[in-house]
């Protein structure tokens, strides 16, 4: 076992993990942060996307021991108290989901995309989300949601 500590959704967390423990499993099974879903488990689908040090990663393809000393943000760390993040609001407003399984990863990838490019074109949104699969929506409302969030976040600055 290896001892690790990390800031997860703003809270200091620590524990002993087997080196083979994947970050997503540490989050879900040891910390109870089950907002992050496991989809394909082969680093294709992006459902498990979280931010490590502010940048998107697929948490099924990162070892928990590799985030020792770092900060992790999951879908459960986006809201400010009762106030949802603009990307979360826009996904609800635009109905950027159907079954909702891909949504935690889709939202986190969108947050990363907007951090990198606050005013993306439609093509840039689609390209920025290429690592996240949605089998329900056909993506149109997801793209609309990211555009709406971009406008909202730009207006609030």
């Amino acid at each position, binding site marked *: 076992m290896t001892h690790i500590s990390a800031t997860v959704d703003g809270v200091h967390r620590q524990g002993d993990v087997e*080196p083979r423990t994947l970050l997503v499993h540490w989050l879900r099974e040891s910390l109870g942060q089950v907002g992050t879903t496991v989809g394909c488990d082969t680093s294709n689908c992006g459902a498990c996307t979280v931010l490590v040090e502010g940048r998107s990663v697929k948490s099924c393809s990162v070892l928990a021991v590799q985030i020792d000393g770092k900060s992790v943000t999951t879908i459960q760390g986006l809201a400010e108290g009762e106030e949802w993040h603009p990307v979360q609001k826009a996904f609800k407003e635009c109905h950027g989901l159907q079954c909702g399984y891909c949504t935690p990863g889709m939202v986190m990838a969108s947050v990363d995309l907007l951090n990198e490019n606050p005013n993306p074109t439609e093509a840039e949104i689609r*390209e*920025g989300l290429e690592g996240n699969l949605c089998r329900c929506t056909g993506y149109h409302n997801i793209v609309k949601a990211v555009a709406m969030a971009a406008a909202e976040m730009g207006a609030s600055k």
Partner: protein
Amino acid sequence: MIPASFDYVKATSVDGAVAALVKGGEDAKVLGGGQSLLPVLRLRLNAPSVLIDVSEVGEMRSVTDDGDSILIGASVTTYEVMHNELVKEHAGLLSLTAGVVADPAIRHKGTFGGSVAHADPAGDLPTVAAALDCEMVIAGPNGRRTVAAKDFFVDYFTTALAADEVLVAVRVPKLGAGWSYNYQKFNRTAQAWAIVGVAAAVKSENGTITEARVALTNMGATPIRATGVEAALAGASSSEAIAAAASKAADGTSPTSDLHADGEYRKHLAQVLTRRAVQAASGI
């Protein structure tokens, strides 16, 4: 899917990583960004006894100007290669191609050195390493050595790296003035591996190509330099001449057939993509 158990060593220096590899023996593996290795472990296609994490070894995390070349540490991420100013200035083909590797989340973790050492024939960055005549700086128990790209890639997922050696950095010769470049990647869906890819760098003077480098992705077991195309491009000054040169792209190759494409289709793609890459690079 959970990997089989392994021990984990976080290396803090190149020497430490080599020592851990020697101690770990044949079953030890180097962990960089893990974007190729971890899926392999999860699928239990491999079960190393120990992983030696080099992702935060300081020497392997920097990009430095070294006169005629730039030296890119093996643990520099694909995302960093895309955005690094030295890479953009002196090896634009590499930063451009880094931007089409996988997807943003994978580019944040995956490393240039890891891609090169993994040597997937469908990988984009090994092809650029071949096109730019990069040299691999390798550390082992007997010190350091340098291996040219043409000797580094040996077979499918097989390189000149011995089991007790670590890829420390990639030396990328600077492309001087007059060079322009392009990378064409053909795949079926977003983030998928290249069915075929083509890296092209051309030097032009007054609308005539004087020198060209063309390398192919997924047209064989290793990245392949299309030497016939390169020779035929010298002196080309029209789209017809470029197309004629590009028609040699598949000469001497025997690409694999798989679910995505058969070998004949890949040979066709190589010619089409070579023409597109050279035209886009040269503006001719």
